[in-house]
């Protein structure tokens, strides 16, 4: 069951539930977790038909679990009518991506097939221009997370964006002077600096930025609590997968080499999000 995170609560995705009993079971299972107490619960219902009585019991169940029912989305007319009768707010979930300030890269990846690419439905090598390598990107979907524009949930103001951009500076930093090897996992509530290589098969997860003084070959996740403005830097970026905030990308198959040859000349690289994609650029291009 996937939970998308919203500011003062979360979305429970129940589109997979086809029967009322499944809906009730999933809700009770998720709300049983301690972190879901005292929260705003938004239900994403699929085609399931809920009568007025059933929806009342769903609402009662949410309240019994010390949470509040925010709003629901549904594709069923029956559920829609019941919700209207009970005065429950109805919403279509919308995905919103904040555009960062930089100029657009010269080419943008074809994101329409990104999901298929990830799961091998159709092969489309990512476009690669001379110096900037652009990864195919998983679009916002139920697997990753969602941002919601609703009255209850405040939109990101300029101040919030500035705060997110500067967040890394205010976080503590974990400093590691060794090679991170396959199977090792490092996570931190702050930034992570690694002096050494991050080998394939390992993962680094940081709330803030990640900096690697070496080759980054494993999985890296910066801004792990949803900050899309976090950055990942390394002398050479060759990650199997990369995640920044809620944006996800994988290494294109065209450069699917498990190991990169060491060289004495590196141009440091930086990964950041741009319009919902992850872009890698050489750091000297910045100026």
């Amino acid at each position, binding site marked *: 069951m996937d939970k998308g995170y919203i500011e003062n609560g979360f979305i429970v995705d129940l589109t997979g539930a086809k029967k009322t009993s499944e809906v009730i079971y999933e809700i009770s299972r998720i709300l049983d977790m301690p972190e879901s107490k005292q929260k705003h619960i938004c239900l994403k219902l699929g085609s399931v038909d809920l009568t007025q009585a059933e929806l009342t019991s769903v609402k009662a169940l949410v309240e019994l679990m010390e949470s509040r029912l925010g709003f629901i989305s549904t594709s069923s007319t029956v559920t829609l009518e019941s919700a209207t009768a009970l005065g429950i707010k109805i919403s279509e979930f919308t995905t919103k991506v904040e555009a960062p300030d930089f100029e657009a890269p010269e080419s943008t990846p074809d994101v329409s097939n990104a999901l298929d690419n990830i799961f091998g*439905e159709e092969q489309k090598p990512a476009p690669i221009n001379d110096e900037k390598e652009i990864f195919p990107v998983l679009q916002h979907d139920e697997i990753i997370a969602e941002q919601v524009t609703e009255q209850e949930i405040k939109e990101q103001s300029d101040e919030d964006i500035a705060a997110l951009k500067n967040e890394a500076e205010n976080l503590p930093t974990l400093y590691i002077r060794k090679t991170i090897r396959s199977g090792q996992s490092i996570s931190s509530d702050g930034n992570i600096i690694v002096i050494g290589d991050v080998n394939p098969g390992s993962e680094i997860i940081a709330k803030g930025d990640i900096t690697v003084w070496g080759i980054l070959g494993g999985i890296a996740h910066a801004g792990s609590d949803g900050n899309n403005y976090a950055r990942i830097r390394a002398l050479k970026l060759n990650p199997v*997968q990369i995640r920044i905030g809620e944006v996800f990308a994988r290494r294109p198959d065209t450069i699917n080499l498990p190991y990169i040859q060491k060289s004495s000349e590196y141009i440091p690289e930086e990964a950041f999000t741009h319009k919902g994609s992850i872009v890698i650029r050489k750091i000297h291009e910045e100026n």
Partner: protein
Amino acid sequence: MTGRVIVITSGKGGVGKTTTNANIGTALARAGNKVVMIDTDLGLRNLDLLLGLENRIVYTIVDVVEERCKLKQALVKDKKNPNLCLLAAAQTRDKTAVTEEQLKEICDKLKKDFDFILVDCPAGIEQGFQNAVAGATEAIVVTTPEMSAVRDADRIIGLLEAKEEIKSYKLLLNRVRPNLIKSNDMMSVEDVVEILSAELIGIIPEDTGIITSTNKGEPIVNDEKSLAGTAYRNVAKRIMGEEVPFIDLEEATSVVAKVKKFFSNLIGKEK
């Protein structure tokens, strides 16, 4: 649909379990079967590399077990063959992250949607082996014509025979070098079969192409010209119940055969 759950195991490491798994799985899928491969080598996963799917893994078997995702979400589709799926192992965890019951449950669920479930077993006879075998009803024991590998295969067969769920097991002899057998420097196929008294399902010749195919993430069965690829395709046919004679490796790898093959390729190109 009720799929067959086949565990591929060996006891000894490095004899080619994972290579066998990737190739048989690909060959079965190429023949039109729906195949899912489960990597149970938690902490030392390799199957994804051999298939070139490392960069596609989002969820692993541990995520399924710990209910962070649905089983369907964790299945990674092969790049070429939509009939082929991989359920990857977690690299940052160890064998204790999954129990026998959980693996059995996953296999039972997958049986409904797939014709073949191939379980890649880790080396050794500890928890990892017990987990891998838990859901299976058939086994393929991979060994090489070396005393140590044969000894370990014997141990594994003993353990498999003690398991009620395992209805049948077959022997796959890997990395056979006919010229060494001829000069009496390697145990012959007959010797190994005699020691283990198990039914053979395949004899795979040593092939340098395996090394390149492993590094490229491209199973060798996709190479129509490779002898090892043909041998693996034959294994897949035997699994599906076809009667396929074993390749006479000595003849196939002889100088005459190589010359013949060279000329037939040459003629083929001219056409």
